[in-house]
């Protein structure tokens, strides 16, 4: 089985983002960019499937500016076989990404697409579900475990009250949650080897996808700040204040 993994270039999760003073967005100049952490989990899961013999080829796809190639290289260094960069300088929404990925799926015919459940920049949590809809495939979102059977897979999902297990027909979409696995680090020899792996470049036009925006971001503002309160001396004072001052107990 061939598997497609979608990888997004985002602000590194350790960076404290700053809103620009003109409220047009967050400041991305000189900020470290990395692969979206949920997408690293997606790549890792594909690698484990390949190591287990259920998958024979892993294709990493990224959509965006030229530098997204670095994100694909990271996936290749982890062990993916080849990459596809769909290049665009436009602001892209999950619906557009899903349409581009559908076009890639139509060309590549994978049996499975794995995506992160959400990107840590826009926090949309949409792309996998949208891709599943456009393909008419079932979706196993927020997955913490995947087990293959004959023509189907059992996907265990992280839901609000605990865990839920579904049986899905292949081909299917999986989106990853945190506990699916712990991604490996790429070793130096593998980083070197990844430089020779092929990355195919395309554009949304090549794939016939209309990228016209549906949403306009009017402003990006700082969230309302909380101010620090008081330090209490002990538990007795805390209970007294919660009862008589805050009135919450």
């Amino acid at each position, binding site marked *: 089985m061939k598997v497609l993994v979608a990888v997004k270039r985002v*602000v590194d999760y350790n960076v404290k*983002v700053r809103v620009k003073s003109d409220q047009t967005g*967050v400041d991305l100049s000189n900020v470290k960019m990395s692969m979206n952490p949920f997408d690293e989990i997606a790549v890792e899961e594909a690698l484990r499937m390949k190591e287990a013999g259920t998958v024979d080829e892993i294709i990493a796809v990224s959509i965006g500016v030229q530098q997204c190639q670095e994100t694909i290289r990271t996936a290749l260094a982890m062990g993916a076989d080849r990459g596809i960069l769909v290049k665009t300088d436009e602001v892209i*929404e*999950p*619906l557009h990404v899903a349409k581009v990925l559908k076009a890639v799926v139509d060309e590549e015919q994978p049996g499975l697409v794995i995506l992160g459940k959400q990107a*840590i*920049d826009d*926090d*949309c*949590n*949409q*792309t996998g*579900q*949208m891709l*599943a*809809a456009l393909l008419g495939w*079932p*979706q196993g*979102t927020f997955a913490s475990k995947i087990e293959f059977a004959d023509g189907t897979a059992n996907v265990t*999902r*992280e*839901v*609000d*009250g*605990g*865990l*839920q*297990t*579904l*049986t899905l*027909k292949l081909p299917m979409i999986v989106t990853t949650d*945190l*506990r699916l696995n712990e991604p490996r680090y790429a070793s130096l020899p593998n980083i070197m080897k990844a430089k020779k792996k092929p990355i195919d470049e395309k554009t949304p036009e090549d794939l016939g996808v209309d990228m016209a925006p*549906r*949403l*306009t*971001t*009017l*402003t*990006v*503002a700082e*969230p309302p700040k*909380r101010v*620090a*309160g*008081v*330090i*209490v001396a*002990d*538990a*007795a004072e*805390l*209970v007294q*204040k*919660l*009862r008589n001052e*805050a009135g*919450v*107990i």
Partner: protein
Amino acid sequence: MSVLVIAEHDNAELKPSTLAAVTAATALGGDVDVLVAGSGCAAVGEAAAKVTGVAKVMVADAPEYTHMLAEPMADLVVPLARNYAAVLAVANTVGKNFMPRVAALLDVSQISEISAVVSPDTFIRPIYAGNAMATVQSSDAIKVITVRATGFEKAAAEGGSAAVESIPAAGDQGLSSFVSDELSKSERPELTAAKIIISGGRGMQSGDNFPIIEAVADLLGAAVGASRAAVDAGFVPNDYQVGQTGKVVAPELYIAVGISGAIQHLAGMKDSKVIVAINKDEEAPIFQIADYGLVADLFKAVPELEEELKKLPPA
């Protein structure tokens, strides 16, 4: 044009988060209709009809909606959505699962986890784990929206008298089927519905120490939560997790015990009305957002808190 709210429920009860979604829908203008999709869910339909501000309730009662799986839900909602200016669902793991599927089939861009309605086409939503708030305008004919329930007051559960109509199911293509649930059993309230939450972090050192905060939770009728650090360390299951990658909560009182206050945790609880932090490290970032801070060893302070609460006369 009217607005459709898709109810969150467990086939027996309408969840309070739906009331917050009704408030968000009311802010969009026009009549608010509610869809209850479930199995044996007539009582939920009746409860939805009583909610103030609801004009009509549609009940789709069929086995394929028992667990509100994304594939049959999308097939049900998409044709209905074409009659509405907007479709809203609560941004929990059910709504987050099926709503983008609905949006893609309608060829619209979803607006995820809105925390405020500016106008019928403009919304505020958190990005970067709540470190920035984006105001977003949609040009799509149908707005597909998930609602962060903590951002909206709950509509009154009583006072309405909407008509309830039964609608036909849309069938099941058989792409997905339910196998099992492993739900955490607890006598305590659910995190997202609790008025008081007490959460433990890495400072708890072990899952074996959680009973000290559970004792306080039981005195207060509180839910028990945890930081991602505590979940990653294996102290408690993942469904305890409060934060960007867990649940977003906004109770009346949030007590953070042995939690340093990583950005990812703050994103999940900073809208709480009153925040208490108990931590031995006075430099911990949690104190910068806490209304009341107690700098102390939690293994001493939490049992003391329990004793003080026992002494407290009833309110």
